[in-house]
């Protein structure tokens, strides 16, 4: 097979080789002497937890970032990739974790923008349809992007990359926005590409996916390569060892049964979308008892954001239905009122919502914990603020420069620990957490999950909204699924599995939305 520039690759030569790539940022060494070899047609995983430097490395390959040192060898020849346009000319394509699509334009306009020259839109549409059919990625070229779901948008990104006939396709954490069934379909597409001779660099931290899909894996930790292996031969445990440097921590499960007090009750909540591009909520029913963790699974974009702002009171828009906190109706009240009743919540965005990036940790403690004695007569009590911040830092193992460190100077995991700590220290009766471990390193993630379990055991009612099914299965007592603004009835975690929840996430299951088979009757799909 020949690539777009007509070069034939002899056997044995790696399609892509990286030697000694280094990239330093002011506060961190993101890539330290990285070596990598990808054979033609190989599906090669780059495995590492959040913060290991995988994204930076991919940006170097794609020409978005210039390395400080090292060589990039493409098909046996050294090249300097200076821009994405040049990378594309060489035959490198990339599908980003966060999509680069323009909402107000159509699919074909978006793809046209990514191509050089002036492609005729009609011909391009035909090409899009051809590629989409060949690889099982159904997409309508004339649709406006803002009407498409996250999964559909990813298909557009993949097709965009495929239209350039890449010889190497980089996929950056592609499955974080997909249901398990959609993941399977994606894998089929990737296997077909690999059979056609295209190499694939698959970036992920999900061990079982890499084991199922990839021929080879380069493992990264803290900016360095810690190992190269064949995932088909390795166990998840050995790969985890290379990725984290130790065994993956396991949570101590809850031992106490859930309470009976209904702390958070949502009854037929119906609410329009927050913005023009959002999802409306439709007849949401939800109950969280004291001492129980209820999980809400679902790919983002199905109304989770809207559910959280409805429960927190951050965006006051008219709604129908009831929300009750400890028996008191709180629909259409502001967050301060709800906090006073004992609600705390952790949003999915850390910087810019859960904490103000340029303020110090002490100033950020004041953001929600101000009722804990920090404000007297309208004036700030700096002693109380500092004391609280210290308690938070120490109690939740937050690695930082002290209470005066700026929030944005903390790593994702440490900031998340601080925010969760801040809320937990307020001894809430109800805690709502959205995406508790997104973008967080493995150690901090385990700590956070254990914190939630411990909190549950003290009698707090906890609601967790998460895209990570593994996480929900690890800590929740029961799981509901959110699809297109509707919430399914909760199922006890012990009585279900990944496949079933995955099916429900695509909206195909019978247990969805009240047409459920009777719980406890043993009747399962």
């Amino acid at each position, binding site marked *: 097979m020949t690539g777009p520039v007509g070069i034939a690759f002899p056997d044995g030569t790696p399609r892509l080789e990286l030697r000694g790539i280094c990239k330093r940022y*002011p*506060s961190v060494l993101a890539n330290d002497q990285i070596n990598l070899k990808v054979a033609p047609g190989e599906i090669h995983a780059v495995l590492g937890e959040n913060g290991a430097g995988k994204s930076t490395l991919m940006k170097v390959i794609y020409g978005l970032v210039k390395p*400080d*040192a090292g*060589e*990039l*060898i493409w098909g*046996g*020849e*050294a*090249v*300097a990739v200076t821009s994405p346009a040049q990378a594309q000319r060489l035959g490198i394509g990339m599908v980003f974790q966060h999509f680069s699509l323009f909402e107000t334009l159509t699919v074909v306009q978006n793809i046209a923008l990514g191509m050089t020259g002036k492609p005729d839109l009609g011909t391009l549409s035909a090409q899009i349809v051809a590629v989409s059919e060949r690889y099982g990625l159904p997409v309508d070229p004339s649709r406006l992007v803002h009407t498409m779901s996250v999964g559909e948008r990813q298909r557009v990104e993949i097709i965009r990359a495929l239209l350039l006939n890449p010889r190497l396709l980089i996929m950056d954490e592609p499955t974080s926005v997909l249901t398990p069934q959609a993941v399977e379909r994606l894998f089929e597409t990737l296997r077909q590409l690999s059979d056609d001779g295209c190499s694939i660099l698959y970036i992920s931290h999900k061990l079982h996916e890499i084991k199922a899909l990839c021929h080879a894996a380069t493992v990264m930790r803290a900016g360095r390569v810690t190992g190269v292996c064949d995932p088909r031969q390795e166990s998840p445990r050995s790969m985890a060892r290379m990725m984290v440097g130790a065994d993956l921590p396991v949570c101590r499960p809850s031992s106490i049964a859930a309470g009976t007090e209904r702390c958070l009750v949502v009854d037929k909540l119906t609410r329009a979308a927050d913005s023009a591009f959002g999802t409306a909520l439709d007849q949401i029913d939800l109950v969280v008892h004291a001492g129980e963790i209820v999980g809400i699974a679902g790919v983002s974009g199905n109304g989770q954001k809207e559910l959280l702002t409805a429960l*927190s*009171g*951050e*965006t006051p828009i008219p709604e129908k239905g009831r929300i009750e906190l400890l028996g008191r109706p709180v629909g259409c009240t*502001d*967050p*301060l*009122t709800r*906090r006073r009743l004992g609600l705390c919540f952790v*949003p999915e*965005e850390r910087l*810019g*919502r*859960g*904490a*103000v*990036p*340029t*303020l110090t940790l002490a*100033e950020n403690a*004041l*953001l*929600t914990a*101000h009722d804990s004695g920090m*404000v007297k007569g*309208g*004036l*700030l009590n700096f002693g109380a603020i500092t004391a609280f911040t210290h308690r938070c830092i120490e109690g939740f193992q937050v690695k930082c420069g002290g209470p005066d460190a*700026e929030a944005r*100077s903390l790593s994702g995991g440490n900031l998340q620990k601080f925010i969760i700590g801040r809320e937990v220290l307020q001894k809430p009766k109800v805690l709502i957490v959205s995406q508790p471990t997104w973008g967080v390193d493995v150690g901090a993630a385990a700590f956070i999950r254990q914190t939630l379990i411990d909190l549950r055991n003290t009698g707090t009612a906890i609601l967790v909204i998460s895209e990570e099914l593994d996480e929900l299965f690890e800590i929740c007592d029961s799981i509901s699924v959110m699809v297109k603004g509707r919430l399914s009835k909760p199922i006890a975690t012990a009585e279900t599995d990944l496949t079933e929840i995955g099916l429900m996430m695509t909206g195909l299951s019978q247990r969805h939305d009240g047409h459920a088979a009777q719980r406890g009757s043993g009747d399962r799909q």
Partner: protein
Amino acid sequence: MKLKLERRVAPSQIMQYLSPLLAVGLTALTGLCMFIAMGKDPATAFYVFAVQPIENLYGVGELLIKASPLILIGLGLAVGFRANVWNIGAEGQLTVGVIFSGVVALHYGPQGGSWVLPAMVVAGAFGGMLWSAIPAFLRTRFNANEILTSLMLTYVAQLWLSYLIYGPWRDPNGFNFPQSEPLAPSALFPILIEGTRLNASVLITLAAVVFTWFILKRSFVGYQLQVVGLSEPAARYAGFNGRRAVWIAMLAGGVASGIAGVGEIAGPLGQLFPTASPGYGFAAIIVAFLGRLQPIGIVLGGLLISLLYLSGEAAQMTLNLPSAITGLFQGVLLFFLLGADILITYRIRVIPGTVKLKKVTA
């Protein structure tokens, strides 16, 4: 060789204080170059600009009496800018403050009484507050941009005052000049220092400095305003009322501007003219920025801008330059200030040549 801007690990504290000084220095340098280009002797020009206006007691009095409204309005605007509320209509709010207090002064002043002056201050504050309440309302209720609405209202206010001065309030004994009657003694601020025009209105400004410092540094309200200004989603998450913040921000500027207006007519002007002030409402924006939105800085910034005003007048008399040079320098100063601010979050690095990748022999 290339110059590159590299982000600092943490913002530089030193540069926070240095960058206004750097900006002033660069402006002075620009001025010097300008003078040389215009054929004026730089040394004389510098003397005229920096020294001559404040050579004597009267000059110092002028400096302070001009700085007073600049600082007062600057404080009010700083409260707003911190909350990301951009009150650009301070000049209009000052004008309406003049109108409202003018009503009191012209109707009740001649009768006399110690209550007249305080009543004027209250009326002026109320007028400015009213004029700033309109953009506040339009923003909180209709989401209309406060920069544009407050500015439009400035033009309206100036037309209103103009109508009054050319019309019903024109001084019958004024030889048809567009001005009001001179204000009666009971409607004027008492002079503090003999031989100058420095009057008691500076005491109001002083009190405002202390009050604002307290609010911004020590109060929970000040903290809330800061969060609203830094991150709207975080403010919503915290439950801080964004609307209330807009109201506080705009009204602070309005009250300050209104009172500053009273200070002008009950002070150095002594009567009402079609233009209420030489652009203090706009200059105060620069004062607020120069002062880094901090009360102490605003005091210093106010003194500097006041000096610039006096320099402009001196330049006109001595150097034969149009007094509009003041506005020119104000703009240049703001440019340099905004430009120098980058050094707080970025540092300049020199990159010696580019790194070349070696060719590989197969």
